[in-house]
């Protein structure tokens, strides 16, 4: 099933075979999008929601000078803009980080799901609440942690999320983000990120080269990041 990563590691096993089939059969279209392309613009009324099948996307907001702040990074299995179903438009932009494959769900189809499948509907709701939990953690990350902590936390979180969907193992995963991307996700400059990455490497905590992340000491990196994964609601959901 191409929608098979939805809630993987976070309660997918609670979906019945029928619900999984409904989710799969409700896909309106599947398309590939190149890297660094905007797929949703803030304020525009939209009538589909996107399930990320392959690749990474980011949600971001620009300040008045055009400086970008990433407010979320999404991995395969995430519904990227399910919020648009009840809200009809987003308050932020969405763009691809690397090349992606996405599945589009018409909002009319989602409406039918909410009418006929209450348990599946709660799971869709749960997935938007996962976004909210990550947003709260990002507020903490950016408000309370210094530069090293912010970057370390991002890598720890992505490792945890990618492990859930089978795209990270033994602290290693591919990540199509540049140092400027990491800077924009961390409220830092590229120079600062470069300095932090060097420091984390010299402390034998993490390396990030050619888009490959290698966490060398998971426990120590998590300590620097003040990272505790409970807010990701993994291991079978709530």
């Amino acid at each position, binding site marked *: 099933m191409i929608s098979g990563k939805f809630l993987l590691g976070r309660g997918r096993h609670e979906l019945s075979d029928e619900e999984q089939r409904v989710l799969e059969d409700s896909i309106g279209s599947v398309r590939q999008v190149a890297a660094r392309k905007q797929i949703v613009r803030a304020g525009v009324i939209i009538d589909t929601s996107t399930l990320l099948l392959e690749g990474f996307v980011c949600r971001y907001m620009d300040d008045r000078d055009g400086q970008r702040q990433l407010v979320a990074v999404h991995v395969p299995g995430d519904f990227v803009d399910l919020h648009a179903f009840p809200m009809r438009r987003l308050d932020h932009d969405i763009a691809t980080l690397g090349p992606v494959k996405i599945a589009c769900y018409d909002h009319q189809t989602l409406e039918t799901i909410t009418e006929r499948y209450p348990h599946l509907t709660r799971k869709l709701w749960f997935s938007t609440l996962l976004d909210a939990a990550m947003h709260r953690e990002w507020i903490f990350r*950016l*408000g*309370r*942690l*210094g*530069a*090293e902590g*912010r970057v370390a936390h991002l890598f720890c979180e992505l490792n945890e999320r990618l492990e859930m969907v089978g795209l990270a193992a033994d602290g290693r995963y591919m990540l199509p983000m540049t140092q400027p991307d990491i800077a924009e996700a961390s*409220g*830092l*400059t590229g*120079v*600062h990120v*470069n*300095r932090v990455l060097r420091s984390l490497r010299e402390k034998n905590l993490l390396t990030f080269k050619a888009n490959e992340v290698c966490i060398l000491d998971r426990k120590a990196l998590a300590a620097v990041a003040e990272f505790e994964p409970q807010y990701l609601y993994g291991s079978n959901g709530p």
Partner: protein
Amino acid sequence: MLRPETIAGVAAAQDGVVTLDGRDGLAITMTPEAAAETGRRLIAAAALAALQSTEEPPLE
């Protein structure tokens, strides 16, 4: 509520800019000129603050 920081920030020079790291989420990069002027202002403000009362004003 945050309390005044007692541990000094760490300033470093890299690639022609100054990074400042510290607790409570302090993390900023500045040009050399901005860093130098900030430094001057910090020193002046620190001198003034050292002469002021440390009692917290009553909550309103």
